[in-house]
């Protein structure tokens, strides 16, 4: 996914990924500046208000962004290992699916999908086995945590059978 630093044989080429990080830091800093400026208008009379500390954080983030740019050009970032995209996509997909399914399908089905997707990300691609296993496991967890420990875990069609 990410290219390692390209400074082989003494060549000094910028580490583009690190430059992206610096840009993100600048963006975060900008958002905080924007918000802190609004706060300064709201409570203008006091020298130290709710905007003071965010403003200081924004300034430091800006300085860190500059430092990151320098580090990017000097190739100071550590060598990165090759990252496999597909397993990461499985896990993120599973988490996203759980998030979207949670309130309609209930805890067990949504989290069962996450379980199967994570297992798939780690090489167990037999979804017809891992999905039922995951759903049953999550149902057991639901019965323990929602039933005995009274955590409020969303119920779906499966959970209602036990209520």
């Amino acid at each position: 996914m990410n290219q390692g630093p390209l400074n082989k044989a003494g060549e000094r080429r910028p580490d583009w990924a690190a430059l992206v990080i610096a840009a993100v830091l600048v963006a975060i800093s900008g958002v905080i500046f924007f918000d802190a400026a609004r706060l300064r208008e709201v409570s203008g009379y006091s020298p130290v208000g709710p905007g003071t500390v965010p403003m200081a954080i924004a300034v430091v983030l800006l300085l860190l962004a500059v430092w990151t740019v320098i580090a990017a050009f000097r190739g100071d970032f550590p060598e990165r290992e090759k990252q496999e995209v597909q397993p990461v996509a499985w896990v993120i997909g599973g988490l996203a699916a759980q998030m979207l399914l949670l309130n309609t399908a209930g805890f067990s089905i949504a989290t069962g999908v996450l379980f199967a997707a994570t297992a798939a990300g780690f090489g167990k691609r037999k979804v017809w086995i891992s999905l039922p296993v995951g759903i049953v496991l999550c149902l057991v967890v639901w019965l323990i945590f929602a039933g005995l420990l009274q955590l409020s875990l969303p119920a779906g069609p499966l959970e209602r059978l036990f209520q």
Partner: protein
Amino acid sequence: MSTFEFLLQGLVIAAQPMNLFYALIGVTLGTAVGVLPGIGPALTVALLLPVTYQLDPAGSLIMFAGIYYGGMYGGSTTSILLNTPGESASIVTALEGNKMARAGRGGPALATAAIGSFVAGLLATIGLAFIAPFIVKLALVFGPREYFALMVLAFVTVSSAFGDSTLRGLTALFIGLALSTIGIDQLTGQTRLAFGVPDLLDGIEVTTLAVAMFAIGETLFIAAQGVKGPDKVEAVKGSVWMNRADWARSWKPWLRGTVIGFPIGAMPAGGAEIGTFLSYAAEKRLSKHPEEFGHGAIEGVAGPEAANNASAAGTLVPLLTLGLPTTATAAIMLAGFQQYGLQPGPLLFATNPQLVWGLIASLLIANFMLLVLNLPLIGLWVRLLTIPKPWLYAGILLFATLGTIGANPSVFELGMLLAFGILGYVMRVFGYPIAPVVVGLILGPLAEQQLRRALAISQGDFSVLFTSPIAAGLLIVAALALIVPLILRARGRGEVLSQMAANED
């Protein structure tokens, strides 16, 4: 009342049947989760925090203390048998312990680690009980500016003094600090950085952030390495009991490890790792068998493991007496206190002595339970190590999301969990440390509060921060802790510091 009476009173509270039961559940869960590869004490505590939601404060904190100590014990088992330390503090244990396990001496390695942890935990917890009242007295003279200076020192040591880059440590810290300003300002009630999203008004939950960055970030990172062959688990051959020679070679390292580890943990500087490295170096120098080091010397397991547990108990000193978390684990424990509206610090000792002393006493009891759980039942925990990776990580994510859903079953909260998980993954890829983000998030609002109080007293005059001798001294130490490592790294002597990197706790 004297410390001794307080402690006795605490023991009475901790010995109530229900509290004993909570402690037992805590140590069992803590060991079970802590033994899983890739899960250190910080994540163990974050994952199991939701389990305690429905209990009363005393029961919950007692269970929590058990989880904390249990996670520490479990971690050493993993590093001895698997050579993939679940926590950076166990790296040294893996160095010699795994060699011993390969040579068929896994049993004595586990035993010396467990008994060493017990001895260190016992002495350090007693040390905690006796030192805490003095620090509480000292803390009473602390005003807002002294607290602020203390927190600045903690920020510096957690983020940049150790680890391999000042830049990346500070960046991680300031991301945490930026996240900590989201929500309603405590002093004026103004909304900051919420942009009209009602879910953000209460700020970002420490547990959501910690679980996302440690559990989901780590899972994504491991997944991204691709499918590799399973790690080799060393079988425990022969007896778990140590022979006479093992005892003779272990008891001094246990005591030395405790003496090295406890003060390091108790300082508001953070990092259980430093103590383990120092202890390892000391044992190597003092050993009569230096040639065995690197090939499975029992002293190299006994000393660092004792140092590790002693400094874990030591971190409770600043946490309980000053409300100052110096590790990610302590930061999450502070979040555990805050869910009951309790703020650890000198006041808690005055207003809620039963709770504090009950907690300290239950640490002693948890320590005894862990010795029993870890020696005869070691085979049970070893079996947990053989869970195949797909099921292990699927299960970790199941429980990681369970905690968040149980605390707040909203799509938004799960979205934050996913977003911070991805952030944690990206930070791992680029070599950013994770702990400073968590410490920044929880300590940020406290530091801001103290700073603004100090400035309100001085009517906006910043020089007030440097005019108290204690505050000025602490700030000078903080500045040194920031600058000296920078110079060391610039001169190419950074390896020692990066070895001490505080990745997990």
